[in-house]
């Protein structure tokens, strides 16, 4: 919504604040002022000129030679490129030496052999509007040489308001002025149009009224509560007077002609949409508000041919729909230069019906915006009167003395009770009844006598009653009035008090602590956290169907992710596309699926609301690829490999989940969807026999990696499996020296390292502190089908220095265990 500051100052003569202060006050108490822009601030030197002669240019078809009167003694020659230049008409004239708002300086020059001393210009060239179709025709009656900005009421300042959806009343100048009055609404003064007045004698009817040669009927009372009409005969349609044009230009509206401009002026002044029909185009001199018929066609004012359906509310004459009720008029019945008689419509269309019409035709207008949010039904008479008076003043003609008024009688304004004690409870301030009245009165809330004397007296006094003005349909409850008190008091004026608080009765959700642990773990290991969107294109592999989004933004985003690794693979591809080879991402995010009815059945007793068909879960995804460490001049770089992945995954499994990492033979399925991306080198995270996640090499087909990329490794596991209560028990450190022994054994290839290590730990005494595999070798010197494994052992006692004999005893036990269980042969150097 745009507001002209000049217009506002005209309405509120007492307004003394500067633009900045005004914008601030309004932002802080009513609605945000998004911007303040100067309008017509660069029009100095531009004047009104009258075209005395207009002849075709001898050397150019599209140019006109004009001789204009710009208020000087001598007429001036101007070459004009507009399609139509009317002799005798008034236009804005930029003299040679003056500058257009864009900074372009106009000079005297020859155009196709003819001298031109200046320029006649369009709204667009003056940066006053969008209309570049032709030069801007000014209303007769101005004097050549008059300053253009002066006659248009410029320069002005345009405030752009960001209105809250409940405050449609602020979408007009009077609405804005109401919020800015100091003492009372009486401070608002409407412009005197200087024409004849109109005090109609209303012809009332509930469904239909025939008067002044017209019949008006509401056939769909659920869509239109009231319809007021006035007939004006003998108008002269033409340009509006400059002041009116200037007001509309200042708020960015397009001047059309004096009649349409008058309806728009009242719209932006009083917030009531009004439509003018060319009376002679209405067949049967009849207007009906009814549901459109299926397939009915209407060309609207924007030139679109529209096909209607019964959800659309139309204004029809005897034969056809002629306008979309509350949205837009039709081309056939619009006011044109040839129009002489008018029907002026001022109605209250129901918000739902206007919304339905707009939705059916995907169309929104200044009028529909207001109807959808609710207009002031009590203001119809005043708005119609105002519009008729303005048309009489600017377009002449004569109004029929009778006004047509169809519909239910308007209900009394509602009144709402407000307990001062409730104000105190919700706001913490206790202004008292008189102060509350002083806050609410100026914006139209009238204090009334309470219905009963007993009405809920509180500690802060008896309940008050306020009558709600018709333009505040958003105020329906006591709490709405409480808000008004707070707003008028000024949010900024509330005192500051830190209050004591009781701690929350709601426990923390453990998922956040689990996420913190995971983040700490992977960040410490050099990984960076990603956050991806939850959408995926359809994936065809996987055990469960992905959740489909029926109204996706694109086919690429038509499913919800069922796993994190496939999403991280897309992120990896993004990095590859940017030439990044070293990728180390982790993500904590939600994955989605359809609920497995048996397993994920909702809590017993929970109401089924449809969500129980779905399942969501927080998971952790990891993806690494590229160099193990950043390249350094001193060493050759090595790419991350199987053992890096296994080390990272095993550590994550153990430290985060208290789980172990087990290899999974190729061909054996892992948990669910991991099979879609895992290659033959694969592991699962296991705790108590339950699979918590998977890790391994990503299969080539699952990622679009460039030839210069290295292997991609990934892991995924349930966030819920992360352990929080793990408290590590301290093990005393020995101050006695350790004894180191090495042992190399040759074993058959079938003997797995993990099993041998378990055997070693199982057979050694408690003196064995640690073992570390340091060599794996097969080949020359080792028999076919065998390999050599070598461990470094550390023995240590807590209470003494170990003797060789003690260690030897342990080593002997270990060696014989290995010989026995694995057919191991001890290698000697």
């Amino acid at each position, binding site marked *: 919504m745009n507001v002209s500051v000049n217009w506002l100052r005209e309405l509120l003569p007492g307004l003394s604040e500067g633009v900045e202060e005004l914008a601030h006050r309004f932002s802080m108490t009513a609605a945000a002022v998004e911007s303040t822009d100067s309008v017509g601030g660069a029009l100095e030197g531009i004047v009104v000129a009258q075209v005395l002669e207009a002849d075709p240019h001898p050397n150019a078809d599209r140019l006109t030679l004009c001789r204009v009167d710009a208020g000087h003694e001598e007429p001036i020659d101007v070459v004009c490129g507009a399609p139509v230049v009317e002799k005798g008409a008034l236009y804005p004239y930029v003299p040679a030496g003056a500058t257009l708002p864009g900074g372009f300086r106009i000079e005297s020059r020859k155009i196709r052999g003819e001298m031109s001393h200046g320029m006649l210009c369009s709204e667009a060239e003056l940066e006053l509007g969008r209309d570049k179709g032709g030069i801007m025709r000014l209303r007769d009656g101005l004097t050549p040489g008059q300053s253009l900005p002066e006659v248009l009421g410029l320069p002005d300042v345009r405030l752009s308001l960001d209105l*809250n959806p409940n405050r449609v009343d602020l979408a007009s100048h009077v609405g804005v002025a109401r919020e800015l009055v100091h003492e009372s609404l009486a401070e608002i003064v409407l412009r005197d149009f200087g024409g004849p007045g109109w005090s109609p004698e209303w012809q009332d009817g509930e469904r239909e009224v025939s008067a002044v040669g017209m019949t008006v009927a509401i056939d769909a009372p659920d869509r239109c509560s009231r319809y007021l009409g006035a007939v004006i005969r003998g108008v002269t349609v033409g340009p509006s007077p400059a002041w009116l044009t200037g007001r509309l230009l200042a708020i960015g509206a397009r001047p059309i002609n004096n009649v349409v401009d008058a309806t728009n002026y009242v719209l932006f002044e009083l917030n009531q949409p009004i439509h003018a029909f060319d009376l002679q185009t209405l067949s049967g001199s009849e207007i009906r508000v009814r549901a459109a018929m299926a397939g009915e066609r209407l060309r609207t004012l924007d030139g679109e041919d529209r096909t209607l359906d019964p959800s659309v509310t139309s204004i029809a004459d005897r034969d056809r729909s002629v306008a979309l009720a509350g949205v837009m008029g039709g081309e056939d019945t619009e006011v044109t230069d040839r129009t002489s008689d008018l029907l002026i419509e001022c109605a209250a269309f129901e918000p739902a019906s206007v919304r339905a019409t707009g939705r059916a035709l995907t169309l929104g207008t200044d009028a529909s915006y207001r109807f959808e949010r609710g207009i002031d039904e009590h203001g119809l008479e005043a708005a119609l009167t105002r519009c008729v008076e303005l048309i009489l003043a600017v377009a002449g003609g004569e109004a029929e003395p009778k006004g047509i008024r169809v519909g239910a009688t308007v209900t009394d304004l509602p009144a709402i009770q407000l307990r001062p004690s409730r104000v105190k409870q919700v706001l913490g301030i206790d202004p008292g009844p008189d102060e509350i009245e002083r806050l609410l009165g100026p914006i139209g809330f009238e204090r009334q006598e309470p219905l009963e004397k007993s009405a809920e007296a509180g500690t802060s006094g008896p309940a008050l009653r306020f009558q709600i003005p018709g333009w505040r349909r958003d105020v329906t409850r006591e709490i709405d009035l409480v808000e008004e008190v707070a707003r008028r008091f000024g949010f900024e004026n*509330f005192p500051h008090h830190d209050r004591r*608080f009781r701690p929350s009765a709601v426990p923390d959700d453990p998922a956040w602590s689990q996420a913190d642990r995971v983040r700490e773990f992977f960040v410490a290991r050099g990984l960076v956290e990603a956050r991806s969107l939850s959408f995926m294109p359809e994936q065809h592999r996987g055990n469960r169907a992905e959740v489909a989004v029926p109204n996706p933004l694109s086919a690429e985003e038509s499913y919800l992710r069922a796993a994190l690794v496939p999403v991280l693979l897309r992120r*990896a591809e993004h*990095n590859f596309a*940017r030439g990044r080879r070293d990728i180390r991402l982790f993500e904590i995010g939600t994955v989605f699926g359809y609920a497995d009815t048996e397993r994920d059945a909702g809590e017993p007793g929970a109401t089924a609301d449809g969500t129980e068909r779905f399942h969501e879960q927080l998971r952790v995804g990891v993806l690494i690829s590229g160099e193990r460490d950043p390249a350094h001049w001193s060493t050759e770089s090595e790419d991350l490999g199987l053992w890096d992945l296994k080390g990272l995954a095993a550590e994550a499994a153990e430290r985060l989940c208290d789980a172990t990492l087990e290899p999974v033979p190729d061909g054996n399925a892992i948990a669910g969807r991991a099979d879609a991306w895992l290659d033959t080198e694969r592991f699962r995270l296991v705790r108590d026999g339950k699979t918590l996640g998977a890790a391994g090499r990503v299969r080539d087909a699952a990622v679009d990696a460039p030839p210069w990329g290295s292997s991609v490794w990934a892991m995924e596991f349930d966030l819920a499996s992360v352990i929080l209560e793990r408290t590590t028990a301290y093990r005393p450190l020995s101050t006695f020296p350790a004894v180191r022994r090495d042992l190399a054994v040759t074993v058959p290839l079938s003997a797995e390292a993990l099993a041998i290590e378990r055997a070693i730990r199982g057979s050694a005494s408690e003196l064995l502190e640690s073992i570390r595999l340091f060599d794996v070798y097969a080949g020359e010197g080792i028999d076919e089908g065998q390999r050599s494994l070598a461990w470094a052992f550390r023995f240590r006692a807590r209470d003494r220095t170990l003797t060789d004999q003690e260690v030897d005893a342990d080593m002997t036990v270990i060696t014989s265990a290995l010989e026995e269980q694995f057919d191991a042969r001890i290698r000697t150097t």
Partner: protein
Amino acid sequence: MSPAGTSLLDRLTEIEEQGLAAIGKADSASALETVRIEFLGRSGSLAEAFGGIGTVEPELRPRVGQRANAVKQALISAHTHRARELERSGAPEGQAEHDLTLPGRHRWAGAVHPVTRVIDEICDIFSELGFTKIRGPEIESVWYNFTALNIPLDHPAADMMDTFYLDEGVILRTHTSPVQARVMEEYEPPVRVVVPGLAYRRDSFDPSHAPAFEQIEGLAVDEGIDFIEFRSTLEHFVRRFFGPETRSRFRPAFYPFTEPSAEVDVSCTVCGGSGCSTCKRTGWITIMGCGMVDPAVYENVGYDPEKYTGYAFGMGPARIAMVRHGIPDMRLLYEGDVGFLEQFS
């Protein structure tokens, strides 16, 4: 200890010392090769020492053998390292190590996502104020997302254009506010919670919109919570989060589930309030929508609206992160570009 064993151990120590010194001094590949043959060659001094192990008393042999192996490993490792150095530097001896202006060795640095960091900082401040941290489902019912929050289904926010529908009555939540209704249904006051999480809207992915984005919801409900506490608490938060010099303002706003409703602006952290492109030349950045919980919500969740009062707020940590770091395009946050993410380590 026997003379043979002792002398061989001494000899091994001698070989180790001399060998390491000679390898360190070798200033060319050929010099290094000469040293290698002298100590590690087939008939070098180490091979000679290994030969002597046979003369050592059997019970000492393992220990001497072990020592011999250790010396061998040490020499091989030193040799390999020196060979690599000579190969790489191609420069005269010692210079590489002594040019301390050469770059040091780094490890990959990890990083928390900038949005996570904002979320954590916000939650930490509210945690000090007695708020707990909870979460709620992203797949949500129309009831919790709209109806319970007093949002009529023909409200623009509930429009098909803005919401991802999954099934009859089931949507991807359009805000984190449904958790307000859920937590009040489950617990009696005092309720003081913050709820980070994702919300979804059918906005195309562009520099200032994402179809999925983070929100932080906050809710405090108890007896005696008033507008003064509401505004004081949130202003305390603003000063803690944005710094004591930051100015803030509460403007009237509209949300169906709060009344009175407000928007909180902070003075632009980029230009300090003088006007720049980040604040669209207004000097202010809107960071929060908030208000006193509407009595209609209490009625929907079974609280007595005459007994309990409280406030709720919602913030977009992604936008805050963008302002904080000067990130011009929201899509950068969700692309997983390592070059972007590691800037925040």
